[in-house]
């Protein structure tokens, strides 16, 4: 498996000179298995860039896209209307998100309803299907096997464990589980995973309870307890500058190494590619 980061920011896009290296687009990760099959994790503004790369990249057409959405906050869905493969009638797009009282189809549709966007979700030319997952789902999504766990977040949200080619990747963004006072579901979900992409919006010094996010230290703690090989710090606070993230990365690697020798810490940045 390979991953590439198209958006690493949390909350809101943050273009500008302070975010050039780590990027200003919101959550979006491209996952490919060894055959090139595509799975996208979240549809923040980074999805637009991924779509453009696909249109220009000369890959297999028509596209066959599976998109897992962690939850429906703006920074995780805003790219959908701007995902150019969604306007290709020959391509197929399957969106999967956490089940809640209203259907995923209806909820995603609301975001594109007039007057928020000129194209209704039903009018997207792509062959679209929208499905749902719940806590503890264990399903095949194309060549990928996907497990899910419900996260502690102000809106129904799922973490996903993705397995393919005998390798495993956990995507756990927007989680305050480390501070919920209950067993943290991300730890068993991430057990012995090769790579854990984890919410690291806050530092202990600027942590905001009930906002639904984790700290860098909590992310390290999960990675240690779950015995993962690599931790990717993700969902950067919109106020975090490139320089601050450099420092955070260095400090985090030191802490991680102290707690579990061999644990690699990476700070997610746009354009970063990792072999899982």
């Amino acid at each position, binding site marked *: 498996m*390979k991953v*590439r980061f198209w958006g690493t920011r949390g909350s809101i896009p943050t273009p500008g000179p302070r975010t050039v290296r780590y990027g200003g687009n919101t959550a979006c990760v*491209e996952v*490919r298995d060894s055959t*090139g099959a*595509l799975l996208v994790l979240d549809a923040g503004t980074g999805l637009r*860039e*991924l779509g*453009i*790369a*696909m*249109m*220009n*990249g*000369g*890959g*297999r057409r028509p596209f066959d896209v599976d998109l897992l959405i962690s939850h429906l906050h703006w920074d995780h869905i805003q790219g959908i209307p701007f995902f*150019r*493969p969604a*306007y*290709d*009638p020959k391509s197929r797009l399957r969106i999967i998100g956490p089940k809640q009282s209203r259907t995923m189809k209806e909820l995603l549709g609301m975001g594109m309803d*007039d007057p928020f966007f*000129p*194209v*209704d979700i039903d*009018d*997207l*030319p792509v062959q679209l299907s929208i499905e749902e997952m719940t806590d503890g789902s264990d399903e095949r999504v194309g060549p990928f096997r996907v497990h899910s766990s419900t996260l502690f977040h102000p809106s129904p949200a799922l973490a996903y464990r993705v397995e393919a080619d005998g390798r495993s990747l956990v995507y756990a963004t927007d989680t305050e589980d480390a501070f919920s006072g209950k067993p943290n579901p991300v730890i068993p979900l991430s057990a012995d995973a090769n790579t854990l992409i984890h919410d690291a919006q806050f530092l202990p010094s600027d942590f905001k309870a009930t906002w639904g996010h984790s700290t860098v230290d909590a992310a390290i703690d999960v990675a240690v307890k779950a015995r993962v090989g690599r931790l990717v710090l993700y969902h950067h606070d919109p106020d975090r500058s490139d320089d601050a993230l450099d420092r955070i990365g260095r400090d985090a690697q030191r802490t991680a190494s102290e707690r579990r020798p061999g644990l690699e810490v990476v700070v997610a940045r746009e*354009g970063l*590619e990792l072999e899982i």
Partner: protein
Amino acid sequence: MSGRPADRRSTERRTAAGAPPDAADRRAAERRSRERRTAGHRLEVILDVTRRLMSVTDLDSLLHLMAEATQELLAADRATIFIVDADRGELWSRVALGTGEIRIPLGTGIAGSVAQTGDVINIPDAYADARFNPEPDQLSGYQTKSLLTYPMTGQEGRVIGVFQAVNKHGSGPFTTADEETLASLAASAAVAVENAQLVAEQKQLWQTLIETLAMTVDARDQQTAGHSQRVTRYADVIGRAMGLRGKDLEKLRAAALLHDYGKIAVRDKFLQKPGKLDDAEFEYMKAHAEKTGEFLAHLVFPRDMRDVPVIASQHHERMDGKGYPKGLAADAIVLGARIVAAADVFDALTAPRYYKPAYPLDKTLELMDEMTGDHLDPKVMAAVHAAKPHLEAALAALKHTWPKPGDEGMGTIQEAAGLSERDRAAAKGSS
């Protein structure tokens, strides 16, 4: 990764260079959404307008409502609704609420031609079309561009009105979809307009019917010419002073207008006899009040006007119970009848009759005060006094309807300085 890993700079360059290959699909999707949203919105507006149309029965409000709906549904800058006036061979409309009306002869201009032929005329550019008359534009400074004119067809297949929408927003002409929208709107509007016309005609029929009845009875006797009309006006003034409004006033006016209708059954030799009636003749004359009730009871009044015959037939009842035909007293007499009684006496005294001159207002009120309690209702008389300036104005306005010296039976007015026995009798026997 997506085939070749993307070099982001080259990606952006290509995007900026020209329309990406999926742009047409994106535009088509946008158009579909827009059309569906527009269709849904149009349907909602049509339903809403239909609902409101059905609750409005006056034509002015209907025209306003339909013009608003047309403007909104068609995204038109202006909309005018014309109604066919078949009697005058014209189309008419209000220019704007509260302003005057415009009239166009049927067959002239675009709207007039649609009214005559029933054809839809959809003109993308008015100034390129010979049928368009640029004169109104020249007068108002308005620039007409696109113009959609659509007939409103009534139940019998006649064109009863015309929708005209002017200048579609944006650059395009009005579309086939706009014509379809107007077709739906026009169908509901036609029902509402015909209803409103029926209601208006019915009201007119009713009003002219009772006016005609009153005219026929007044025509029997020159010396009471205009009497019913004047009593109606005085009763209306007194009724208002007593706080009557709306339907109550309408009933009062109808009853006042028809109060003497029974006289149609009184022989000319009594009705037109100069000089005093003897007792037997007076008894005979008295029958007119009862006849009024009898005749009017035969007429099927609109539901909310059912007590008009009762009011009309009780106008000779007296507070002391010595009146006729039933000898009802005080509150047993309906209020309307007590008002008509006062208005009746008021006219008998203020207008000239062959046996008496016209009394001035003050003298009339003095005489009526003397009759108050026994004959007239003190509460009604209080209103008469309160409404004195209004009565004075009404009196002045109606003087021209009085019988003139030289009219049949009016040649022998004696100038009387004081109130003679005869005057009192005239007042009491006012009819």
